[in-house]
């Protein structure tokens, strides 16, 4: 049975073209074309002129002050106080809330238990059972 991946014609063509390589000067020609493209021309002259004309641009006197006012409004914990994230840190952060929740549930349960016990005692008293000898 013929193997569809084994095509002698394609193999022959592949073998025949295996040795193809650009001529010795190809890389140089590419680089020359790139350099030609980067050579100064009208655009570069215009950009150089614009660069010179805008060289003296500076922000106004109040600029740094305005930046600092905005900076002072930002409250950021200093890097030294920012603990790197860790599993224990995560457990500590979320565990705290879990503990608060558990305590609240425990307090509610205790309250219910006390109420139930009190109600039970009252019910027993209400039955007015004879004293056991």
């Amino acid at each position, binding site marked *: 049975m013929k193997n569809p991946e084994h095509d002698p014609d394609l193999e022959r063509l592949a073998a025949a073209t295996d040795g193809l390589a650009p001529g010795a000067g190809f890389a140089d020609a590419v680089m020359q074309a*790139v350099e030609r*493209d*980067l050579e100064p021309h009208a*655009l*570069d002259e*215009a*950009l*150089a*002129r*614009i*660069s010179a*004309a*805008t*060289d*003296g*641009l*500076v*922000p*106004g*006197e*109040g*600029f*740094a002050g*305005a*930046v*600092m006012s*905005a*900076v*002072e409004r*930002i409250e*950021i*914990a*200093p*890097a*030294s*106080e*920012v603990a790197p994230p860790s599993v224990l840190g995560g457990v500590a952060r979320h565990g705290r809330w879990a503990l608060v929740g558990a305590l609240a549930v425990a307090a509610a349960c205790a309250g219910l238990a006390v109420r139930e016990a009190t109600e039970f005692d009252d019910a027993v008293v209400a039955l007015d059972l004879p004293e056991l000898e």
Partner: protein
Amino acid sequence: MSVTVDLRLMASRVAAGDAAAYRPIVEHTQARLFRLAARMMGDLGDAEDALQEAYLKAYRAMAAGRYDGRAAVTTWLTRIVANACIDALRRRNEGPQEPKHEPRFDGGATADARLALRELESRMAALPPTQRAVLILRTVEGMSTEEVAKVLEISESAVMQRLVRARATLRGERDESESSDHEES
């Protein structure tokens, strides 16, 4: 008299919670970065907005200890300003045209400088922001290919590629306008 400011030392103080140490960093770098922002944005008011946004972003990163000192402070800030300008240009290209506003802190830009910025803007308008950034940094700011690559955090070959594409786009624009002028005449 020039005063030498140890920007790395100031950056470490900011990281330790000393916000005031950011002032010398701003004062020392603002002229150069304002020029870059003005050239990138082609407009003084937009340059001010982009630069202020970049300085605040840089402060937040520095204060949170995200400046790792691998690049010089000026290179790191230049990167943040260039990226802020690229983002602002994208917003400008994608969103509705907002009316231009005058800079709030007039640094006394000469008429020549204003005209030059207007010319720069009209020449660069057709370029995607990333190509525009490479062309401005390389040609107008006069940075080397290596410096541009460091600022934009891309490879030097990517810088060259964007530069070639930018020039091709501008050449295409020019040829198109010349041919339409020719047709009209």
